[in-house]
């Protein structure tokens, strides 16, 4: 590889790395006009918004989405924060309209018990398997007694 090519590769690598670090931030609220002037309130709005599902794209939060509906929902979150609503009140407002589906973090309820219990069940079953496995394979057999050694020599015909 000549020097020019090497320089180009490292330059494009640099651009790539820069894109990796910059891109995620660029996807959040695209228009600075949307942001609240108070950074504390804006941080709260982003925290609430990142817990709300964009209903158009479904696996993005409304903070990450450029969909029209997500933009409107972002604006509503900010209006309600300025109006003095708590995070919980805003969440309840959204759930009243869109159901629990709007929450990216599913609440603990009858239909989600198995979902929430999965890590605990995994640890439990894994622990049991490890415990029984150790018990079965862990203890080495006792060394042969003198009589057994004699019998072994007799059977194998070794000196």
């Amino acid at each position: 590889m000549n020097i020019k090519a090497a320089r180009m590769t490292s330059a494009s690598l640099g651009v790539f790395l820069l894109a990796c670090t910059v891109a995620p931030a660029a996807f959040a609220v695209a228009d600075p006009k949307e942001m609240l002037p108070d950074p504390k309130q804006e941080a709260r709005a982003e925290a609430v918004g990142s817990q709300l599902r964009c209903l158009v794209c479904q696996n993005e939060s409304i903070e990450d989405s450029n969909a029209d509906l997500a933009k409107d929902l972002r604006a509503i979150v900010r209006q309600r924060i300025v109006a003095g609503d708590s995070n919980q009140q805003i969440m309840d407002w959204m759930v009243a309209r869109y159901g629990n589906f709007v929450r990216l973090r599913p609440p603990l309820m009858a239909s989600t018990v198995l979902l929430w219990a999965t890590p605990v069940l995994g640890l439990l079953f894994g622990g049991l398997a490890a415990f029984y496995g150790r018990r079965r394979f862990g203890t080495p057999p006792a060394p042969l007694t003198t009589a057994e050694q004699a019998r072994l020599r007799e059977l194998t015909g070794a000196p």
Partner: protein
Amino acid sequence: MSFTRRHALMLAPLAVAGAAGVAFWKMLDRMSEGKFDPHALNNPLVGKPFPDFAVSPIGPGKGFTAADLRAAAAVKPVLVNFFASYCIPCAGEADLLGSLSAEGVPVWGIAWKDHQKEVSQFLDRYGDPFARIGNDETGRVIIDWGVYGVPESFLIDRNGIIRWHYAGGLSDDLVHDELRPALKAIA
């Protein structure tokens, strides 16, 4: 040979896999019968009164309010349809809405952040099934109704309660399997 604990331990994973298999089979079976749709978007307002709102004039429509809708539904259940002039599935369900309207089902349309000229063109091109039309200028009405996107349809009974809801374009099957039974139940 007797049944030992070792046998029980060997059979346990098989039993779990078997139970999971039966559960999946049941789920697929219900999906094919149309009783279960994993992609269905459920609206928490079903079974509750529709929210307060007002929509502005657009196209040939003069707009309407929650009070107008409540009064009309008290006489005959109304199918409220959210649409937009640029929306392809809305054009796709236009014929179906037209035939429902021709049968005597009142269909009311709410356009989402749409424009005068585009809505008029849409209705000229695909037909106008709507008894009343209004525009959700700010996009707040659709959010209060819990609408995900256009098209979306709601059936309002005589007491102003949302009886049925579907997010997406209507199809012959859907009308036959869900909307008609729902209409019959509240007729």
